[in-house]
């Protein structure tokens, strides 16, 4: 199968091969002659070691693009508008601001849950997930009040359309995050419980941060930009 070559391949020489086996920090991999024995390697890993982390990062990349493009749509429509909002009142600040505060404080239980999961502490992880669910339920209830106080409908004009689009997009994320956390929390009470479930909890916490952080610019665009003091 190996083919003699008249020219040497352009690739680097394999001098560093022995090195990378020796340098491995865990020294878990044993090179026994013809084979590289990986049986002693761990069966899970947190953060960027795990496949789920990369899958979640991909989803965040896609959804982050959606949010960014929707934000650009809003700014584009506003650029072409004589006044903003076009024909309605700006939204009431209270509920949106309250939800921003609640979302930002959710970082506390979220962080605690993530750390507990990474220590494989089942009791604390369960507690943390339940706390996160309480916060998530609070977001959704307040979000309902936000929609009630936007002072516009999606079919009033282009302003209403883009405001509802941004709010709708973000609310879908709150709903899916709530659903996802609910299922994960339920799985934590299942037996037997593979350690990989802790990795799932940790990745889910990263996604939670994403949903909360994505809200901050949307809050600015939906709530602050149309206020009368911005018009001057």
């Amino acid at each position, binding site marked *: *199968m*190996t*083919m003699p*070559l*008249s*020219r040497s*391949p*352009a*690739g*680097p020489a*394999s001098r560093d*091969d022995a090195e*990378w086996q020796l340098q491995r920090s865990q020294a878990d991999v044993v*090179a*026994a*002659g*013809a*084979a*590289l024995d*990986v*049986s*002693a*390697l*761990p*069966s*899970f*890993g947190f953060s*960027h*070691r*795990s*496949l789920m982390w*990369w*899958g979640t990062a*991909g*989803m965040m*990349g*896609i*959804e982050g*693009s959606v949010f960014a*493009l929707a934000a650009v*749509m809003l700014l*584009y*429509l506003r650029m*072409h508008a004589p006044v903003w909002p*076009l024909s309605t009142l700006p939204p009431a600040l209270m509920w949106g601001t309250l939800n921003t505060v609640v979302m930002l404080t959710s970082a506390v239980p979220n962080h605690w849950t993530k750390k507990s999961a990474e220590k494989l502490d089942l009791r604390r992880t369960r507690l943390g997930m339940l706390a996160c669910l309480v916060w998530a339920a609070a977001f959704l209830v307040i979000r309902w009040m936000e929609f009630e106080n936007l002072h516009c409908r*999606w*079919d009033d*004009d*282009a302003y*209403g*359309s*883009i405001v509802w*689009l941004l709010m709708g997009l973000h609310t879908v994320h709150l709903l899916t995050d709530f*659903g996802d956390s609910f*299922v994960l929390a339920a*799985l934590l009470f299942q037996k*037997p419980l*593979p*350690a*990989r479930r802790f990795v799932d909890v940790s990745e889910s916490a990263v996604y939670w941060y994403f949903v909360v952080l994505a809200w901050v610019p949307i809050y600015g665009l939906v709530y602050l930009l149309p206020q009368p003091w911005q018009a001057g």
Partner: protein
Amino acid sequence: MNETELTRTNAVPPTAADAAALERTWRDPPGLLGWFCAINHKAIGQRYIVSTFVFFVAAGALALLMRIQLARPNHGLIGPDLYNQLFTVHGTTMMFLFAVPVMQAVAIWLLPPMLGARSIAFPRLNAYAYWIYLFGALMLFVALLLNVGPDNGWFSYVPLAGPDYGPGKRADIWAQMITFSEMSGLVSAVVLIVTILKLRAPGMTLNRMPLFAWAMLVTSLMVMFAMPSVMLASTALIMDRLVGTHFYNPAEGGDVLLWQHLFWFFGHPEVYFIFVPALGFMSHIIATFSRRPVFGYTAMVLALVATGFMSFGLWVHHMFATNLPEVGKAFFTAMSLAIALPSALQIFCWLATLATGKLWLRTPLLFVLAFFFVLVLGGLSGVMLGMVPLDLQVHDTYFVVAHLHYVLIGGAVFPLFGAIYYWFPKITGRMMSESLGRWNFWLFFVGFNLTFFPMHLLGLHGMPRRVYTYPPGMGWEGMNLLATAGAFTIAASALLFVANVWRSARHGEVAGANPWNAGTLEWATASPPPAANFDAPPVVHGREPLWQASEEPVQVAGLAINQREVLVTTVVEARPDHRVIFPTPSPWPFVAAVATTVLFIASIFTPWAVVWGSIPLVIVLIAWFWPTREQSRQEMLLERSP
């Protein structure tokens, strides 16, 4: 089954008994029900490739109908309404249901063995993406058969596609087809990125990664950032039509050019989703048939990455005929010319490879050589179109039709055919017929130029695109007839290709593991590969592992053979990092795709479908991800903490 049985690992070197056990562990279940449960990337990839080619042939048949209609002036075969549907469905299918997905489909089949992996990442999600693609594509063709095929062109401009000028459901069908195909494309992109970054064989550092994997990495990242734009645009369009939003309605503060910006912010990178994977095919075929590694590996990789970035700075060159500021247009002219540089760099590296190699002129190489001729012509007309004054003259004429077919067919379809001839033996275990292949190639090459070269002249002579007929005496008759003759030549060539695939899959010469004496990993395993791709996962020591003297260690040991255990490696250095159990075959991806399809199609008719349609979908998704007790128990047997 006792505990030692459960944790049995692969031996060194692999034994026949181990290989048989692996096959039992990794194969998809048999039978009709098993067919719907399949998640092996080779099964899904093969179905995906076949499906995309079926839609390629279907969209080609629509093109043939259009060419028959245009063969002579005032031809009455096809009326304007049907003609509008034909060119819209032709373009939509070729772009969204053939060219982009076929590249992902080939990658889904090919990347795991090329990277030395047992499986693709997230195999169930991968199966789901395929089913979503298939259902969306079927929806479009069913709509065409029911005379509700979209009729606003493949880029579905507003206000023509908006609620005021596009009554009925045609534009909604188009918008929802986008939702299906882009959702599938986005999911596949994530699956491919994670496979490329985390499942490479130990030792396959980024610096040793095959160029096709690099091309797919760049493409998938582009997909991630560009496809959301068209999904958002088409969602806004369907909302304008169904629930009365005003995104594109100037009377209520909306803007029609917003559509063009969003569409082309996706649409221009889309051309590169098609072109960049083809550049990957080129590099592999050229290396193998020149019998040497590609010249300038690092430059090639950097050129791919540069192309990926620059493709996001070109979209306005599709909008030169709009009232945008001239200074802005000048920037996009400059970018349109600048992106020729990384492509030219790759072309020169390939020429250097070909010039210093020992050429073996087989069908795959023929298709690749045609690329140089056809793509360079397409690139040159592209440079012409990049200039605002010339663009304004030939905008919406057949010159643009000629240009885009030279670029897309020359840049992607020729290399794709080469790739099918090249990897067919790996997929089926049999060679394609070389003599039929040569007929296939020459008919395609001649037919292609006969069809599309006259269109340059037709465009310069003022023939607009998207007209269902033209009066006599315009001086267009001869060239139109020639183009129609060319289209029939292409059809004959496509028939030969199908015949060749059909015959070769059954009676072709048996290929063996490495019929072309190629250097990359997929050729190290049997043709077709076993369910787990390799009896023992390989360890890599260079860029062309099969062209190098064997070095130790040659294989990975210690992975379970009666569990779907996979080795995960680090992103840059591909050091062994941890082992992970992969999911088993399941009907849930198929069922979830059906639930998603119900939601998408019903929402064309009532917006409430988004609410009630999500209930079954949520239930199915929970069932999909809910682990059984037995799965958890088996996973824990192999568990080891970091």
